[in-house]
């Protein structure tokens, strides 16, 4: 059954009894009235016939047709009379009047008779005419001897009445009764609607109120209470709801207060933690910066030292010294990579490239390291092309293979590329190393996490490799899957979108090309405020055969220019005194020289802002500690391609 809403139900409850009662009453009264009318009609008809019978007695006795005719003519004047006839004792019609088609022929009877022809809506009544008797009370009559004769019937009066008028009156009454019923029903409906509105409105109001309270609008209660009239039938309910809403509101307020307090406490904790993290970062940044300067200088000094002739023992010592410096520099580079990735300072340069060159480079770069540990590094050659950033992928492979070599004591490392039916290309790095226990598999990607290196043996790496890998593949949006079994080995699978090969494509990978050593005799302007670093750098450059002008700061550098020095290349530290930074100084110097002299910046800062600024200015930023080989390679490039327009952001080392 369809559910009725409260308004319809109320209206039905009010109207159904009304309709029922009014219909029943109407029907009962109409029927009673009809009955009365019919009874009155019948009585009147009978009275008319009797009257006619009495009046016709003497006319019948005397056989006076004229009188009888006058009588029937008079009787015709009575209401509803259609036909009148007076019959004598032998059943002969002595007088009649009215429409002959409504005539009735009846047998003589001493009884009053009547009937109804429903087809013509006609009533016929017959009345015997008997002589009226006078009680004589004399001895001649009441002799008791002879049987008293029945007084002979004088005749009979037959009258036909039409129900037309009574039917019409009934019809009219029905109509007026119906009209009155309809009007009263209408009135009742209006009344019911109006009265029910008085109930429904407060209910609707309360429904809305509860709904608003449900939505948390507790103020609605107070607003509504002002509208409520004193005669509201639901005032009590409303006041209870008001009470309830107040309670709810209070509870709600208390809860909010508690939540606020808790949130506040949490926020404080979070800020504390962030502060601590920031402090740690600052400390790390400061420490790494302060570490870079000496390490930078140390690297240069060792590099210069190695260029000098030595005996075998000293040579070995220098070699070990160089290895230690390199490890220290690697640690600093790893930290730098992480900070750059964190700063989103790495730009993705996505394009199709061939994996073959990448693999060749990998083999070339790491075979020595593998050979050192007596491992077999096998990079299976491939013709596949992929769509990605070659530099970043190379960095990922370098880290994964380096890691594999580091954790493998015997056996080897395999690098393969596989074409998948989905069009993806999978790069896989297999090793036969120690493997990673399942409980550690998630943790190995976090910074400085190393399985089984509680002593932090630096020959086992720094624990940054996998973190850098994960950050990089996330940046590239390439899925990386690791499968490892302790004692059996580990397999990393990197999925890349495949690409259509271009055989004429140029070699993408930055590669140290064999270039002629043309640094000799070129002039470099070195700006460095740290005396130790300056002297190491100058010494290195001089050892490469360059002419070097050195300056402690911007003022010195500008002074050099005024002294007539025209540098072929400018090498400047980023952080300088006297209100300039390296970037501004280089621009100033270039402006002064009126020539876009090639320049490079060096910085111990891992600050993403500095990296961004250098990128924007189109200058190569070398991070301290700068490897002498790297510096040399860069200088060669700068002096060769003037001015070099390189995508500096892609340079990670």
């Amino acid at each position, binding site marked *: 059954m369809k559910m009725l809403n409260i308004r319809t139900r109320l209206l039905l409850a009010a109207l159904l009894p009304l309709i029922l009662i009014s219909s029943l009453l109407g029907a009962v009264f109409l029927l009673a009235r009809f009955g009365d009318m019919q009874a009155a009609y019948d009585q009147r008809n009978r009275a008319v016939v009797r009257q006619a019978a009495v009046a016709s007695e*003497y006319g019948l006795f*005397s056989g006076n047709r004229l009188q009888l005719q006058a009588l029937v003519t008079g009787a015709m004047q009575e209401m509803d009379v259609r036909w009148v006839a007076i019959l004598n004792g032998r059943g002969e019609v002595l007088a009649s009047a009215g429409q002959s088609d409504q005539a009735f022929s009846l047998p003589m009877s001493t009884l009053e008779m009547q009937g109804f022809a429903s087809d013509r809506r006609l009533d016929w009544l017959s009345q015997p005419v008997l002589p009226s008797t*006078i009680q004589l009370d*004399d*001895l*001649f*009559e009441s002799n008791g001897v*002879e049987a008293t*004769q029945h007084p002979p019937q004088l005749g009979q009066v037959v009258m036909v009445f039409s129900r037309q008028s009574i039917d019409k009156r009934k019809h009219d009454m029905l109509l007026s009764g119906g009209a009155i019923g309809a009007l009263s029903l209408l009135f009742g409906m209006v009344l019911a609607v109006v009265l029910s509105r008085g109930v429904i409105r407060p209910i609707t109001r309360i429904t809305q109120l509860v709904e608003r309270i449900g939505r948390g609008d507790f103020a609605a209660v107070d607003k509504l209470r002002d509208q409520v009239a004193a005669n509201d039938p639901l005032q009590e309910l409303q006041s209870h709801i008001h009470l309830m809403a107040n309670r709810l509101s209070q509870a709600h307020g208390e809860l909010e207060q508690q939540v606020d307090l808790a949130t506040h406490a949490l926020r404080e904790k979070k800020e504390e933690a962030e502060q601590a993290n920031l402090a740690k970062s600052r400390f790390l940044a400061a420490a790494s910066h302060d570490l870079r300067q000496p390490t930078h200088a140390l690297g240069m000094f060792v590099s210069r030292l190695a260029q000098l002739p030595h005996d075998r023992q000293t040579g070995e010592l220098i070699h070990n010294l160089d290895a230690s410096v390199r490890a220290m520099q690697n640690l600093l580079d790893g930290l730098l990579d992480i900070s750059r990735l964190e700063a989103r300072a790495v730009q993705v340069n996505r394009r199709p490239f061939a994996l073959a060159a990448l693999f060749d480079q990998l083999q070339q770069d790491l075979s020595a390291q593998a050979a050192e540990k007596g491992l077999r590094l096998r990079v299976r050659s491939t013709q596949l092309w992929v769509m990605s950033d070659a530099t970043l992928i190379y960095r990922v492979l370098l880290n994964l293979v380096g890691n594999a070599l580091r954790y493998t004591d015997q056996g080897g490392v395999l690098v393969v590329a596989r074409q998948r039916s989905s069009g993806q290309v999978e790069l896989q790095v297999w090793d036969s190393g120690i493997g990673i226990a399942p409980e550690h598999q998630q943790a190995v990607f976090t910074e400085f996490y190393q399985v089984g290196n509680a002593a932090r043996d630096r020959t086992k790496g720094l624990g940054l490799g996998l973190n850098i890998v994960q950050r990089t593949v996330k940046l590239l949006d390439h899925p990386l899957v690791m499968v490892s079994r302790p004692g059996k080995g580990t397999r990393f699978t990197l999925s890349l979108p495949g690409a259509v090969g271009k055989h004429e494509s140029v070699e993408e990978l930055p590669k140290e090309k064999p270039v002629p050593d043309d640094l000799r005799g070129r002039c470099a302007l070195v700006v460095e405020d740290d005396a130790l670093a300056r002297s190491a750098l100058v010494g290195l450059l001089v050892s490469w055969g360059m002419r070097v002008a050195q300056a402690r700061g911007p003022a010195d550098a500008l002074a050099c220019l005024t002294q007539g020095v025209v540098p072929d290349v400018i090498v400047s530290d980023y952080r300088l005194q006297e209100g300039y930074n390296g970037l501004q100084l280089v621009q100033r110097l270039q402006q002064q020289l009126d020539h876009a002299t090639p320049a490079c910046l060096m910085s111990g800062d891992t600050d993403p802002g500095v990296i961004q600024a250098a990128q924007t200015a189109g200058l190569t930023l070398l991070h301290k500690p700068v490897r002498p080989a790297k510096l040399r390679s860069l200088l060669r490039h700068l002096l060769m391609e003037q001015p070099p327009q390189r995508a500096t952001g892609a340079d990670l080392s």
Partner: protein
Amino acid sequence: MAIVLRSVLLALACALLGGGAWAQVPAPDGVARVLIVSSDTAVVYTQTAEALTDYLVHQGIPRSDIAQSLVSEMTMRLKSGQPPRPGIFVALGSEATQLLAAAGTQAPVLSALIPRSSFEHILRSHGKVVSARLSAIYLDQPLARQLALVHLAFPQAKRLGVLWGAESSDRAAGLRALVVASGLELQETRVTQPQDLPLALAQVLGGSDVLLALADPAIFNSATIQNILMSSFRARIPLVAFSPAYVRAGAVLAVYTTPVQAAHQAAEVTLGVLRGKPLPEQALEPNDFEVGVNAQVARALDVSPDAQALRSILRRLERLP
């Protein structure tokens, strides 16, 4: 107890009435010389019975010799096998007459307050004739008296209308003779069927100046009287009737005998029988009468008969005291 009380009361009554009062104590029926049997308890019968008794007592008949009874009592006593044996039965009314005629009593029966037609009907039904054992004093007035009344009241009337029925037609010859003697013209019609009455009435009314009603229940009864009166009134023909009831109903005149008058006549006959005379061999006609006038109808018909004067003249004509 009741018997004792009644004896005491009787003794007291005797003492009050003086010596020789024994003769005046009403005798039980068994020894009464006159037994009056009334048809019923109607006033007319009790009145007649009382008047009869009083008259007889007045004439020296001891009250103890006179007893009264009703038809119902009489029937039971006749059936009981101990019929009363009075010197004479006086039957008041038709039913009493019929009972006694049927019982075949030894004592003579005098019937009074009885219409001629009823008495003749009883005689016929019991195969009897009027004799010294069974005689009657009719209620019906003699034709001559009625004719004389018509003559006196309506001197200018020439034509007399009469309706004859089955019961009355045997008087037609007598009337005709009287009418001829009086110089009137008789307009008569015989009504054999009740349905013929209107037509016959119309005929009679059409040819007469006065309508004389003669008692005949087939013609004049409570059902017909209204229309007859109406017809005669419309025809402006005065109706002379035979009963005070007709005067009340609308007849202009009637000549009739009152119960007291009838009682006196019956008492005289009874006295005669008690003194040894037999009952008259012929039924008697009433010797005293009254004249009734409906003044209302008389005025409407423009006549003004004086009842007392008419009675006096009639009595003088009949040489009655």
